[in-house]
């Protein structure tokens, strides 16, 4: 363990950013002959909003999938709270306190919003099959506790009016919010958001930005997000990683990244050699 934990600091808007909670070291991910991620290293610090940006096909979603344990990289290591993380299944990663949302919404369409969000509490339910079936003692107590936790999130994200609505009937922007609710229900210490604002109109984007900031502020959740909308990214995040063709081409505060020549080239399009 030779990890250097940087000192914590306080941001301009009064949030405290702590030491490193997660670190990617020299990650390389291949699909057959295709190199999706090439030797990338970066870290995520406690309490920060960390964005991963880049043009289409840059490997952003792959990177998020590595963090969430969906892909295991061929080379490199992921460190979580100072410990090297062995290859894991996604549900094991979820138990570590890492929750995520998906780029193309993965909710249970036929179930109500409430039930969908309740599924996010799965790791907080310990009652066995037998006790669940009898609905006595622990099972009942847990259900009540979990419902309470879920209701707080429903209140937080202002989706009370659709609590009992089947998700399939909801418009896109609300589905995205329900997905966020489900991720939050797990009470994660790190929240991974895959394009939380894709396909939204300006007003929906503003709402979602507000919620992301509030989650970070209220629960102190560390957030890593992928986003296409540069305006949103620059406003929201504390630090930004820029990827292009599987490589990291920039890393720093929004201002630093904005003035980085490689980043400008990647976004404006420069011939690759």
């Amino acid at each position: 363990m030779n990890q250097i934990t940087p000192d914590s600091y306080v941001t301009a808007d009064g949030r405290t950013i702590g030491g490193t909670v997660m670190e990617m070291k020299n990650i390389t991910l291949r699909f057959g002959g295709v190199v999706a991620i090439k030797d990338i290293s970066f870290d995520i610090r406690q309490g920060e909003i960390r964005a991963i940006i880049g043009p289409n096909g840059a490997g952003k979603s792959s990177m998020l999938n590595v963090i969430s344990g969906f892909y295991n990289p061929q080379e490199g290591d992921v460190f979580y709270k100072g410990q090297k993380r062995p290859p894991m299944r996604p549900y094991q990663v979820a138990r570590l306190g890492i929750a995520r949302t998906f780029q193309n919404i993965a909710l249970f369409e036929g179930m109500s919003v409430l039930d969908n969000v309740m599924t996010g509490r799965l790791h907080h339910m310990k009652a066995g099959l037998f006790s669940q079936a009898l609905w006595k003692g622990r099972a009942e107590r847990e259900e009540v506790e979990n419902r309470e936790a879920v209701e707080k999130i429903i209140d937080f994200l202002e989706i009370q009016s659709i609590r009992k609505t089947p998700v399939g009937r909801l418009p896109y922007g609300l589905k995205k919010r329900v997905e966020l609710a489900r991720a939050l229900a797990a009470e994660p210490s790190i929240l991974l958001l895959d394009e939380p604002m894709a396909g939204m109109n300006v007003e929906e984007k503003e709402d979602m930005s507000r919620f992301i900031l509030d989650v970070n502020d209220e629960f102190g959740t560390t957030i890593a997000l992928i986003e296409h909308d540069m305006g949103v990214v620059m406003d929201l995040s504390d630090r930004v990683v820029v990827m292009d063709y599987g490589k990291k081409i920039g890393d720093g505060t929004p201002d630093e990244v904005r003035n980085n020549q490689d980043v400008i080239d990647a976004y404006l399009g420069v011939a690759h050699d």
Partner: protein
Amino acid sequence: MREELELAQSSQATDGLMSIPALMRRNAERFAGKAAYREKEFGIWQCWTWSEAREEIETLALGLLTLGIKEGDFVAIIGRNRPYLYWSMVAAQMVGAVPVPVYKDSAAEEMAYVLAHCGARFVIAEDQEQVDKVIDVQDQLPNFEHMVYLDPRGLRKYDHTALHQFQKLQTEGRAQRLAHEAELEARTGRLTYDSTCVMLYTSGTTGKPKGVVLSNRNVIQTSKNSVDFDSLRADENILAYLPMAWVGDFIFSVGQAMWCGFCVNCPESEDTMVTDLREIGPTYFFAPPAVFESQLTNVMIRMEDAGRFKQWLFRKYMAHAKKVGGKILDGHSVGPLDRLNYALGNLFIYGPLKDTLGLGRVRVGYTAGEAIGPELFEFYRSLGINLKQLYGQTEATVFITLQPNGEVRADTVGVPAPEVEIKIEDSGEIFYRSPGVFVEYLNNPESTASTKDAENWVATGDAGFFEEGSGHLRIIDRIKDVGKLADGRMFAPKFVENKLKFYPDILEAVVFGNGRDRCVAFINIDLKAVGNWAERNNIAYASYQELAGHPRVLETIQGHVEEVNRSVAEDPMLSGCQIHRFLVLHKELDADDGEMTRTKKVRRVVVADKFKDLVDALYDGSKTVSTTTEVTYEDGRKGSISATLELRDVAVLPTLSQQVAAE
């Protein structure tokens, strides 16, 4: 002698309870363990009994004392209907301050005007949104000192020198109870019938809002009288969902609730009102016509998706309800077979439908604010819902006239409320005098004097008349809008507009004709209703504008206008108001463009001025007109839309005077 006796009786009748805090304490003793407030939060109805409410209110009042609140200070209260904010009003009264509920959706600038006008020293705000608005304009508020907020979300990092969290302030109040209790008792004890109970700002179709000062006498007497009129009891339940800044909500949720000791239920959020209504099942309910209309539309749309048999059953029984439902409700005689059939319908159709609407337990329901369509009104009454109309205004502490049970009609507003005197001047304007007559407009003696004379008669600004026979009041229009056609016949635009607006397709109508030889109209279609119709008839449209200009839409609207003309022609006084030509506007009239007030009342003068070219075209006989209109988007940006509108001629029936001339 008799007057003296009555006076003595009236002060006895209120048992020396001269203020809202006094009523609150009486309730805390008499109904200690009974539900006083409920609010749905985290998916569950949270409940406070009267004695718990008393504790909450008193600790808040003590908390306000620790901040140095003075008697006579104004306390602005901004947010949606929540028990905490109702308690804030009573807490403010307890320390001798004046609560001023403010519309929560007013823009920062509108809020600045109101807060500066009364010189509010304290603000109690619901959440970050409201706190931000006040902070934005605080430079314009020299008197502003402290702000208390309810929901801490997003506010943790704010500078807390002048900012206090509601519950923390209560904790502080509780901790310093000993130091301030005597002061609190002294101040509450000093409250009299003449102390100011509340100040409410009127919405103002013209000019700036005015602050209406209401005394404890105004509020308590009117609450008592109206409670007696409808025999309201301590076991009523109401749903508090209309703006807290509106006088009606203050009377229902504070005045009458405190007088009776009934329970005020607050919805979980604005969007959940319909669900919450169903869960609470209020026994006493108020809603503007728009709420009833949207509920009916939902029912009808859902019925269209139902199976054939269900549709048949629904139609059959609704027709029966239409025939006898209203009569049964009014206690008229109905044949035994019809009665039996109605009872069956009640079991299978009306009862379940009322439950779905959340109106199954309503004993007394009121609608006011706008005219209600006879069809709509009949629909609810035929189901057995005792929906009635009232006529009132802020200056009267709501009640001027009320419809007694059994004497309910769509086109009148009822008889004078208890202790209300009404007279009608030669001009047709309605004047009233009652214990509810407001004290004054704050800092505005001129307006006070022009509205209220030395003998306490108040001008309503409305024209109306008492119907012969029934003695019920009928409202014609705003007196300033009532004019004369070029040939001297009476012109009352609202009368015609209301008839037009009763059609679900028509959202808004503006009729012109003052000083002209004939009347013309602008029509706004209702996008929801017409859009639904277009969908069912396979009519494709890309925008509001396109739908509004569709020939078949114009055809339908023309049919409506002609029908209205036929009905207008029957009225001997107003038959001159038939519409000769009309157009369907290419945009919806909108408060953001200044064409309407925030309470959705058309600003006639603005509309006439802004669309002058269109009015001229209606009068010069042209078939089409091209126009460009500036629009304001919600975020304040401006744009413009242009359109070519078709102007249509409408069939008109000969009017009485023409008939006379012809003979």
